[in-house]
């Protein structure tokens, strides 16, 4: 019996190949109009892709680029990912929307309420990908913040994840009572302060947003090595990893399991998605040619943290099937060229994977539901067994 997986897609401006925008003649202004994003999100939604992540960074230059000397020919210009995802919410139906949020320079309170609001506007399809923003370019844009070493950046991201959960739980599901008889709109006993004081920041109050449809939107991180594996194991629902083949995937899964056994706070198993950059063309050999042309344009072979697979839909599907066999929960495809490879994923690859029973079937309405994650109770909720007023006389039974 084959192991079935979820299919996700990572949206990134003109695509993940650094020359993709240049090859297509894309201008910075083309990337900041909503239409191409709406078209791509809708195509992936129709194709049954479980969620789309949206890349973001608080800098013009790429992470490993010299901020003082931006490389010519790279495509520039971005929209804020949380707001872009919010605009996609009313125009899509089932697809999860997972914007990237930088943890280093943003206000955790704004992040928490922004993602809750995305969850409300999408009726339970919100997630967030947390990323540490330690680049010199990002720091220069904000100024005044002390340089963080990588490890401190991950500790701070962990605090952000922790406080997101506290704020998302701060209103119990039934806090709004609208009791006209007593004139009380809410029950103050069902709203709880976050009261978080950490190494990097503190937050006193409750969220301003009542509990959202998923309770807690899905937290995800991308991880390449031990420190982020531990961050993911401790705080995330979903982790993106970058095995360059099935053997590597098996090793990563083992390391993640070890970290989770030590650190994990949630009772739910961490869902693991393997990232793959894809370039798809129906005609045999054409995808490789297209990749070679992009490499020429960029002045060197494209090297990514993730595996790069160029081929026909069948060839790409074979690679995905091999990854699926390692036991990952899903694959997140990074289209090399947008929108071409996004439409190829939606129109060619996803139907092929579905027809060959690689994809997991699901009919849930929320992102958590589609990923097989239960809707968590607020940590402040009083279950009937714990409430002294309603504790039944019979013995407690283990679930």
């Amino acid at each position, binding site marked *: 019996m084959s192991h079935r997986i979820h299919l996700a897609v990572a949206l990134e401006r003109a695509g993940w190949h650094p020359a993709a925008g240049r090859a297509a003649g894309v201008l910075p202004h083309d990337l900041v109009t909503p239409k191409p994003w709406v078209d791509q999100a809708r195509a992936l939604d129709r194709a049954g892709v479980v969620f789309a992540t949206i890349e973001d960074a608080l800098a*013009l230059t790429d992470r490993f680029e010299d901020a003082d000397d*931006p490389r010519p020919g790279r495509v520039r210009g971005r*929209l804020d990912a949380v707001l872009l995802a919010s605009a996609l919410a009313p125009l899509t139906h089932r697809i999860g929307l997972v914007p990237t949020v930088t943890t280093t320079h943003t206000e955790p*309170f704004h992040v928490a309420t922004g993602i809750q609001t995305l969850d*409300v506007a999408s009726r339970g399809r919100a997630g967030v990908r947390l990323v540490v923003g330690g680049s010199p370019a990002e720091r220069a844009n904000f100024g005044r913040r002390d340089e963080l070493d990588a490890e401190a950046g991950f500790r701070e991201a962990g605090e952000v994840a922790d406080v997101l959960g506290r704020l998302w739980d701060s209103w119990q599901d039934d806090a709004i009572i609208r009791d006209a008889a007593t004139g*009380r709109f*809410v029950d103050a006993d069902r709203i709880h302060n976050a009261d978080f004081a950490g190494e990097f920041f*503190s937050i006193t109050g409750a969220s301003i*947003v009542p509990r959202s449809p998923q309770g807690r939107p899905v937290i995800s991180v991308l991880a390449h090595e031990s420190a982020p594996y531990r961050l993911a194991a401790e705080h995330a629902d979903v982790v993106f990893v970058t095995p360059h083949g099935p053997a590597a995937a098996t090793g990563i899964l083992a390391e993640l399991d070890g970290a989770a056994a030590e650190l994990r706070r949630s009772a739910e198993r961490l869902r693991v998605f393997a990232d793959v950059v894809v370039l798809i063309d129906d005609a045999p050999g054409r995808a490789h040619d297209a990749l070679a042309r992009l490499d020429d344009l960029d002045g060197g072979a494209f090297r990514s943290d993730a595996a790069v697979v160029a081929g026909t839909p069948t060839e790409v599907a074979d690679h995905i099937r091999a990854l699926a066999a390692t036991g990952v929960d899903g694959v997140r495809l990074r289209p090399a060229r947008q929108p071409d490879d996004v439409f190829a994923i939606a129109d060619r690859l996803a139907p092929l994977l579905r027809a060959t029973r690689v994809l997991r079937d699901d009919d849930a309405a929320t992102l958590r539901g589609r990923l097989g994650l239960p809707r968590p109770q607020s940590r402040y909720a009083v279950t009937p067994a714990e409430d002294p007023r309603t504790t039944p006389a019979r013995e407690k039974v283990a679930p």
Partner: protein
Amino acid sequence: MSRSPRQIHLAAHFPGVNSTTVWTDPASGSQIDFAAFEYFARTAERGFFDYVFLAEGLRLREHKGRVHELDVLGRPNTLAVLAALSAVTDHVGLVGTLSTTFNEPYELARQLATLDHLSAGRAGWNAVTSSDAFHGANFRRGGFLAHADRYERAKEFAALSKKLWDSWDEGEALPRRIRHSGAQFDVDALFDVPRSPQGRPVIVQAGDSADGRDFGAEHAEVIFSLHQDFDAARVLYDDVKGRLAAWGRDEDSLKILPAATFVIGDTDAEARERSREIARQQVRPEQALTYLEQVWGRDLSGYDPDGPLPDVEPDTGSETARGWANRHKAVQARIASLRELSEAEGLSVRELVIRLTAKHTFVGTPEHIASEIDRYVQERATDGFTVVGHLTPHGLDEFATRVVPLLQERGSYRDSYDEGATLRDLLGLPAPARTLTPDAAAAR
């Protein structure tokens, strides 16, 4: 020869977490569901409003150390709602209140530029300051910011934001580098959002202090005031518009849109009766006492809401620790003025609080309300109003259906949107002058 009348500008304020909203009414819907915001914004578009206006929440209100239970509590994140509304509306402007105290310029400037791109040029920013430790306790910077410092920060924030928005030239592949070193911000920035349709979002300002008015004269394109009374509105209008020349601006470069509530009836008598009913729903007995408890700083639950004002001294001891040195004097003065008003007019506690918080600006037939709104604008007391209904999300329906057509008949209100109009176009504002001269590009 007849001249065309001055054009009225209207904004629609989504009722937030205050006693304006009668949540006990069976017709009252959700303040959270996106469908409520969508309905409200589409109604504003049906009424050809200039923009939809959302407030901001930074911390839940408290009373006696617990979250406030009596009025609507809880609301979504302002920017995320406006971004979602950009996808389901075509013409109406999208304006949000966003703090200069608890944001950073690079991030907020890119969020506002994003909203302007997503909405094809319909974004606006009500720039507000906040000084208090209560809200600060939810943010990295925390703490207390002195009144003067918060306007320093606001001015530097607005100036830096403008430089960032101006840093991309049309058709350029890279922005200019912005080096800014000031008392509040010290950045060396490459802004990553290309120039947005409006160049810059429309800047709205709501503060009413002298510092606030100075900020408004320099930076604001709309002022949201609370002066609804005709004479007070005209005094503010003259004062603020008089400050513009010092900044090289003319009268039309800034619009003043006071908040206005309304109650419509088929006859004046019916409207007055409805107004009384709504006010009594907006200020129920327990809400009246809660209002006074916030002034007195002590428990007044033993007092009769239908009786006279409490005869006890206020408790201001715990408040001084929060940085209000003159708090006690201010509270005494406030209470003295409340006593004076209630004795002069023979008002009970509840009647006084109704008078203070639920006095409806325009009460009457649609004809009366339309003619009053027109009079304020033609006689230069305002440029229009920021309309607030008392129901969510249907509070604008009756105004759009019954008052708007009468304004249109008078020739002082639009009867269609121009295709592709930006918020700045709707408000009749000039294009913003660039803060950076082309010479600055050479220094890149």
